[in-house]
């Protein structure tokens, strides 16, 4: 289990490749890449800045991954999240999960993203033609998280 918070970009292909080659009993690797869109709420976005809470961020991501590991039969999970200033098409986040069979990897990967979106202390501020604005949390992210609460 690896959690990294960093300003620099990452090589998603290399990370996924290392994860899938780590064990010979891996049958499935599901991964998610989140990236900066050039459009948000109908406005052109030229730049995105990600702030976070050092210390709590890592702890929060590790707790989310541990929870995923306790709920599903997965081998390993990796989360890389960038902070700082990004442009459209820049990668923001990579989540990759390995398991013997696909169902568990799909569920664990989506679970990690849904919890990351609602619990990990990151905040986005975007620059549009109308100036800078903090992005508001979305209600449907709360709904996505609620699906996992039994």
């Amino acid at each position, binding site marked *: 289990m690896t959690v990294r918070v960093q300003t620099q970009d990452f090589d998603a292909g290399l990370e996924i490749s290392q994860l899938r080659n780590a064990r010979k009993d891996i049958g499935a690797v599901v991964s998610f890449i*989140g990236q900066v869109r050039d459009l948000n709420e109908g406005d052109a976005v030229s730049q995105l800045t*990600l*702030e*976070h*809470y050092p*210390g*709590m961020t890592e*702890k*929060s991501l590790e707790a989310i991954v541990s929870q995923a590991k306790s709920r599903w039969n997965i081998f390993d999970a990796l989360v890389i*999240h960038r902070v700082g200033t990004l442009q459209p098409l820049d990668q*923001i*986040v990579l989540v990759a999960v390995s398991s013997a069979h696909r169902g568990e990897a799909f569920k664990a990967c989506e679970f990690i*993203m849904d919890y*990351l*979106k*609602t*619990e*990990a*202390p*990151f*905040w*986005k*501020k975007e620059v549009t033609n109308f100036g800078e604005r*903090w*992005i*508001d*949390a*979305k209600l449907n992210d709360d709904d996505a998280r609620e699906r996992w609460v039994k």
Partner: protein
Amino acid sequence: MQMTNMNIKIFYFARLKETLKFSTEDLELADDDFAGTLTILKLKAHLAKRNDTWQQMLMGKLKVRGAINHELVDDNAPIADGDEVAFFPPVTGG
């Protein structure tokens, strides 16, 4: 009656940090700043007395989440001497 003072560290993030123009502060609280156990809500109310901006940001319409020692908590969570408290808007990463 025994007087106990508390020392806590507070962090502010995102919109709160920007508007309050505070990123972090060390705060000493006297016993009469809070009745009984200090909670997230009591601390918010205490800080809100500073001025209108603080009042609006911490006790206004903005949804503010609190963390104690790097754990998300709700308004009734108790704060202990030496704790690291943080206030921030709902998160928007990923």
